């Protein structure tokens, strides 16, 4: 195995330009599980852990190398809540938001926040410089993204006018260390409600029908909340797998969305 411990971004980009199939290693909490359990043997690895630039964070730009344990204490309430539910303290100390985006699992707990914030993924290559890809164009399928082979995710770019009222919750088999069966993030701002969900489609999604319905209401009544639950359950596209069934996921998605919309009103 060839191993490059990149000290800055240029070094990592040069290594990727030379060997586009080299695998990027951040916290290792997804990659090493594959190595240990599926006996995946990467031929070349470029480690990003030492790159200071990737660990920078501001309210509008979150470096790919920022760990969950830092995001737990960050200013974006919904992202901090999501971060607190990731794995365990050991996983959060190592795992990064860039790795979550790179893996692009439907259950990635950072992804509903990215969708609700209408954030973009900033990527860079040596040959073509920086691209900023809207989240909808970045996540294209189950564990599939539009990242090119020679590119590295550098940051999540966050619009500066996202609502402050943010609520996250997830459903799983138990409390600690659990992969989401369904996750939901709600934001409430002057322009209305935003509802994003995870684990109910190949990519994170926005519940646009439910958002439209809520945003047409002058006042959010109990009946409107019930309607949100019904519309969300209808518009998600979950599957049945080893973690849950389609029917349960539809139900839980509606319940979570209703609960978080209600919570965001308090």
């Amino acid at each position, binding site marked *: *195995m060839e*191993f490059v*411990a990149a000290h800055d971004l240029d070094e990592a980009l040069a290594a990727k330009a030379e060997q586009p199939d080299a695998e990027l290693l951040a916290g290792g909490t997804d990659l090493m599980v594959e190595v240990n359990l599926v006996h995946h*043997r990467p031929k070349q690895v470029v480690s990003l852990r030492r790159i200071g630039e990737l660990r920078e964070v501001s309210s509008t730009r979150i470096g790919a190398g920022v760990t969950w344990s830092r995001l737990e204490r960050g200013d974006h309430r919904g992202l901090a809540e999501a971060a607190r539910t990731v794995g365990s*303290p050991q996983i959060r*100390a190592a795992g990064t938001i860039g790795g979550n985006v790179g893996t692009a699992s439907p259950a990635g707990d950072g992804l509903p926040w990215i969708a609700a914030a209408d954030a973009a993924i900033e990527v860079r290559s040596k040959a073509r410089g920086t691209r900023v890809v809207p989240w909808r164009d970045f996540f294209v399928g189950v564990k599939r993204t539009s990242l090119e082979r020679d590119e590295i995710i550098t940051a999540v770019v966050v619009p500066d006018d996202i609502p402050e009222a943010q609520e996250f919750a997830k459903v799983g088999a138990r409390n600690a260390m659990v992969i989401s069966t369904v996750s939901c993030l709600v934001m409430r701002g002057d322009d209305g409600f935003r509802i994003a969900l995870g684990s109910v489609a190949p990519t994170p999604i926005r519940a646009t029908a439910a958002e439209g319905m809520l945003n047409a209401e002058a006042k959010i009544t109990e009946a409107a909340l019930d309607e949100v639950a019904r519309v969300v359950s209808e518009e998600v596209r979950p599957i049945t797998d080893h973690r849950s069934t389609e029917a349960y996921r539809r139900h839980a998605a509606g319940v979570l969305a209703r609960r978080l919309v209600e919570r965001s009103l308090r």
Partner: protein
Amino acid sequence: MNVTITVNGEQRVADVAASESLLNVLRDDLDLPGTKDACEQGECGSCTVILDGEAVCSCLVMAADAEGSEVTTVEGMGEEGHLHPVQEAMLAEGAVQCGFCTPGFVVAGAHLLETNPHPSELEIREALSGNICRCTGYGAILRAFETLSEEGT
């Protein structure tokens, strides 16, 4: 490839195989079997070590990536002939049965007390939520840390 890691204050060199984990290198190459190997998928915490100041699962650290790092394992806790206060407290409370999970709890718990000397019960539960014990039912382990929190060790 050779990697140089400072383990428990001592510089060590190991010849590591492709994508091997730090856990394997500690146990098999550096003769430090205190760190336990159970799930190899980050779920149980028995392999917890301190890597550059953070408590992490050593089964998920690629050994090659630990080059130049500082690692503390359970063998580095306490001093020769003197147990670490966490070890003392766990003994006193009977928080050890088969002992397989114990090194992970000792390292994760010592890290908690270093960053937060008086954790609340909730903070203790949260900090230890990545460590699984199949014997004790956790009661005695939690009591050990509650005592330590009161004493502020």
